[in-house]
């Protein structure tokens, strides 16, 4: 599965949900900056195009953090309302999605804090940073074909449970990294912490995920470069 490529394609196309695109025939620019400029002048259709372009990614991000559909929808809704309200302050130094991304992430973390659903951090960030060099991630894979693995309902539920078991900070970093490929530096800015803290959180998030999914792992792949093995060997089958 290459969802990242899929997301990028959808974002470039500008309308992931073609059926819900704004008024047919209206000349809607495909460039985010042009859309933002129009939206800043009160063009509701332009803002809707931005919504259509990014609401799904925003939802996946919010859901990855809050782990509840209702809460994630609330976060996305609030994020777009907030973005619209402060659109005049958006100067275009970053991309619209990066700006929206921060709004969504901040709202998601605020939501967790307000509802006190976050789990206690397993260990201090300093301890985690020290542990990064002492431990290592498992050099094992489930089957080399994540897309096929996710077709298995049980595996999908196990992954979901593993995400649920992570602490708020670990999950947020893992989601940011895996869903949108943010760099350590970008994540540090969003989380308002040091780059080292991001590294330690990401390391232990992955480590905990692997621990939760340990029984699904098999030995090292036959191809050390990570090439997909024979699908028949996948435990998802």
């Amino acid at each position, binding site marked *: 599965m290459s969802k990242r490529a899929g997301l990028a394609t959808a974002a470039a196309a500008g309308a992931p949900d073609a059926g819900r695109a704004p008024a047919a025939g209206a000349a809607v620019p495909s460039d985010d900056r042009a859309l933002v400029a129009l939206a800043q002048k009160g063009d509701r259709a332009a803002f809707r195009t931005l919504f259509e372009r990014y609401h799904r990614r925003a939802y996946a991000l919010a*859901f990855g953090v809050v782990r509840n559909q209702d809460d994630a929808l609330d976060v996305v809704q609030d994020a777009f309302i907030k973005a619209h309200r402060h659109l005049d302050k958006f100067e275009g130094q970053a991309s619209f999605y990066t700006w929206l991304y921060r709004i969504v992430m901040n709202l998601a973390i605020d939501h967790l804090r307000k509802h006190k659903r976050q789990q206690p951090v397993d260990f201090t960030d300093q301890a985690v940073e020290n542990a990064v060099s002492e431990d290592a991630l498992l050099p094992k894979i489930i089957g080399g074909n994540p897309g096929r693995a996710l077709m298995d309902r049980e595996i999908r539920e196990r992954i979901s449970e593993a995400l649920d078991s992570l602490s708020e900070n670990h999950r947020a970093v*893992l989601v940011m990294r895996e*869903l949108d490929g943010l760099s350590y530096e970008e994540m540090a800015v969003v989380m308002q912490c040091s780059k080292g803290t991001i590294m330690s959180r990401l390391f232990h998030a992955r480590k905990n995920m692997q621990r939760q999914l340990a029984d699904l792992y098999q030995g090292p792949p036959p191809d050390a470069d990570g090439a997909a093995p024979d699908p028949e060997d996948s435990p998802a089958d």
Partner: protein
Amino acid sequence: MLAADGEAPATDLGPEARQTTAAVRELGELVRGSLELSADDAEPRLAGLWDLIERRLDVAEAPAAAPVAAPAARPSLGARIWSWLAGHRSHVATGLLSAGAVAGLSMALGPAPTEKVVVKTVTVPAVQPTVMTGSPPEVESMELIGGSGTVFTIGDDDGDGDTAVIWVEPDEVDPTEGI
């Protein structure tokens, strides 16, 4: 991990490091795929999300588009009564006409006004009844020219003498000429 995340060049990696990199990438695909499938699950509700957002945007923009006018002062009691009367003009007019008609009929067909009666309370002193203790009076008739008379003779109580009263009545005159 740095290499798997693109934070360091993925060169000169040993076999185990390459395997770790592959495992990290696979885990990332699983997490990303899981979240994408969650978005698929929420698609029906995501489809209605714009309507909710637009409604909230409309509400938020409404005050700016149409500033709320200052609330009108509360009308006085007289103004409210006048307003009510204006609103029920036909009913009020009908009522007044009916009342006038009834009053007119009452004046035309009712009893005439009576004289003024003044009631006075008069105190009358008590009178002792007279008791005749002497002899009873004597009554005698006598004929007179042109009339007749009656004589009452009443003896005094103390016996000193009698009192006589003569009552004369003239004869009736016939008004007829010649009689």
